[in-house]
C-alpha cells in the first residue's frame, strides 16, 4: 500500500512540481508572485480540451499548441500589463496578476458556465502490475513527461550559455545589464516559459480529472505550498517541494483522514513558515541592522 500511495503521490506531485517551478521561474526573474497563475494552469487545460474535443486535434499536437499559445499569452501579459507598472508598489503587481487570472476564469465561465467537462483519456493502456503495485498509463505518462521536461530544463540551465544567462538575470538583473543582456526581453521569456509550464500542468491533469473554470485556485495553493516547502526562489526546491507535497497528501489521506488531502497544502505552508521559513533549499534572509 505504501508503494501504491507513493506512486500516486509522485504522479500528483509531478504536477505540483511543474506548477511550483513555473511560479518560481517568473518569481526569480521579476520578483513578481503571479497570483493569477492557477488560472493560467486552467487556461492551458481548457485550451487542450478545445483542441482535442472540439477541434479533433490529437492530444500531443494539441498540448504543444496550447503551450505555445500560453507562452505567447505570458509574454504579452508581461509586456503589456506587468512591465509598465514594474516601478510601482508590489501590491499593484499582485492585483494585476489576480485581475488577469479572474479575467481568464471569467472567460471560461462565460463559455462553459460552471459545467464540469470530461477530457477523454490519453494513455488508455493496460495497467502494469509489479507485485501489488498497479502502475497506470496516466501515471507513466505524467511522471515520464515531467521527468523528461525537468531534465531538459535543468540541463539547459546548467550546461548551456543561454541557461547561464538566465541564471545571471535571476541573480543580478543589474549585473546582467552590465554585461549587455536585454533584461526586459529575458523577463518576457521567463513569463512565457512560466505560463507554458503552468499550462502543461493543466494539460497533464486534464485527462485524469474533470475540467471546470475554477480548477486553477487549488493548484495555485499547491504551487505556493510546494514553493514554500522547497524554499522561495529555489528552482530545484520547487520541484522537490511539489513531489513531497503530492506524496504527503496521499499519506495523510490514507493514514489519517481523507479530508486531510485538501488541507495538506495549507498545513505545509503554516508548518514550514513556522519551523523553517526559508524552506528546504531557500536561503535565510539576512537583514543588516
Amino acid at each position, binding site marked *: 500500500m505504501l508503494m501504491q500511495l507513493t506512486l500516486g503521490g509522485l504522479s500528483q506531485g509531478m504536477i505540483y512540481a511543474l506548477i511550483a517551478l513555473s511560479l518560481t521561474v517568473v518569481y526569480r526573474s521579476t520578483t513578481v508572485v503571479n497570483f493569477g497563475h492557477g488560472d493560467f494552469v486552467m487556461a492551458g487545460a481548457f485550451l487542450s480540451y478545445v483542441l482535442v474535443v472540439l477541434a479533433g486535434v490529437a492530444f500531443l499536437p494539441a498540448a504543444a499548441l496550447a503551450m505555445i499559445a500560453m507562452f505567447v499569452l505570458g509574454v504579452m501579459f508581461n509586456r503589456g500589463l506587468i512591465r509598465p507598472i514594474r516601478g510601482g508598489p508590489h501590491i499593484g503587481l499582485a492585483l494585476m496578476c489576480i485581475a488577469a487570472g479572474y479575467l481568464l476564469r471569467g472567460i471560461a465561465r462565460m463559455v462553459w458556465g460552471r459545467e464540469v467537462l470530461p477530457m477523454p483519456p490519453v494513455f488508455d493502456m493496460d495497467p502494469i502490475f509489479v507485485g501489488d503495485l498497479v502502475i497506470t498509463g496516466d501515471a507513466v505518462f505524467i511522471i515520464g513527461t515531467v521527468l523528461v521536461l525537468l531534465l531538459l530544463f535543468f540541463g539547459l540551465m546548467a550546461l548551456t*550559455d543561454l541557461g*547561464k*544567462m538566465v*541564471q*545571471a538575470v535571476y*541573480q*543580478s538583473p*543589474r*549585473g546582467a*545589464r*552590465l*554585461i*549587455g*543582456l*536585454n*533584461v*526586459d526581453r529575458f523577463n518576457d521569456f521567463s513569463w512565457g516559459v512560466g505560463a507554458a509550464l503552468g499550462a502543461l500542468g493543466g494539460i497533464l491533469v486534464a485527462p485524469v480529472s474533470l475540467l471546470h473554470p475554477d480548477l486553477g485556485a487549488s493548484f495555485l495553493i499547491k504551487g505556493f505550498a510546494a514553493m514554500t516547502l522547497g524554499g522561495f526562489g529555489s528552482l530545484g526546491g520547487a520541484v522537490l517541494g511539489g513531489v513531497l507535497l503530492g506524496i504527503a497528501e496521499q499519506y495523510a489521506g490514507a493514514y489519517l483522514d481523507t479530508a486531510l488531502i485538501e488541507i495538506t497544502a495549507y498545513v505545509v505552508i503554516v508548518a514550514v513558515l513556522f519551523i523553517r521559513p526559508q524552506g528546504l533549499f531557500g536561503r535565510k534572509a539576512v537583514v543588516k541592522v
Partner: protein
Amino acid sequence: MDTPEPLLKIRDLHVGYGKKPILRGASYDVVPGECLTLLGANGSGKSTSMNAICGFVRPSAGSVLFDGQETAGLPPHRIFALGIAQVSQARDLFPDLTVEDNLRLGAMRRGGKELAQTLAHIYDRFPRLKERRKQATRTLSGGEQQMVAIGRALMSRPRLLLLDEPSGGLSPQFCEEIARIIDTLKEDGVTMLMVEQNLNLAFRAADRFIVLRDGEVVDGGDVRAMAGDHDAIVRNIYL
C-alpha cells in the same frame, strides 16, 4: 601637438532622480588611452554621471556622444554593444555562478569571438582567478570579487572602461593591487573613466581629473601638473 579627438563627449548633461536634480549641465571629454578620474564630494553626481553614460538613468537634457554617436537615452545593452563596460560600485556579480562563468558571461554579447583568447589573457593578468575559476564568486574575498568584476568587464574588450569606486571597501593592500591593475590597463591602452574616493589611488592612477560640485564641473586638469599640490584639489572638492 594636436589634441586627439575625444572618445566620449559629455555636453550640458542634466540628470535627476524624480524632481531632484543631480547633474546640472556637466560637460567633459575622455580622450582615447587616458584615465580620467571624476572627483567630488558625496552627492556631487559622480556615480550618476557613470550611470547616465551606461544608460541606467535617462538624462533629462544634454548629450552623451560616444565615438560620434549619441547614446543618451539608449538602453544599457545597446550602449554595452558599442563598447562601454562598467565595473560598478556594488560589483553586481552573479554570486552563485563560478568565477569562470562570470568571466565568460562578460563576453556573451560582445567579444565572444575571441572569448578563449581573452579569458586566457584575463587569467594571465589575474592568476588568482585562474586558481579559483571553479569557485562560486560569493565565496571569494572582496578583493578577489573586484578582480572578477574588472575581469568580467574586460572580457567584452571594451573601448571605454568605467570604474566606479574600484577600491571601495577593500583593504589598503588590495587598494595597492587595484592601482597596479589600473597601471597595467593603462599600459594596454585601455581608455578609462574612474570615480574614486581614495584620492591617493585616484591621483596615482589617473592622467587627468575633473571635480564635480553640485552636478557641475568646477575644476579639472592634468594630474602631473598638480603634483605636490593635491591639497588644492581636496579643498576644491570639499570646501
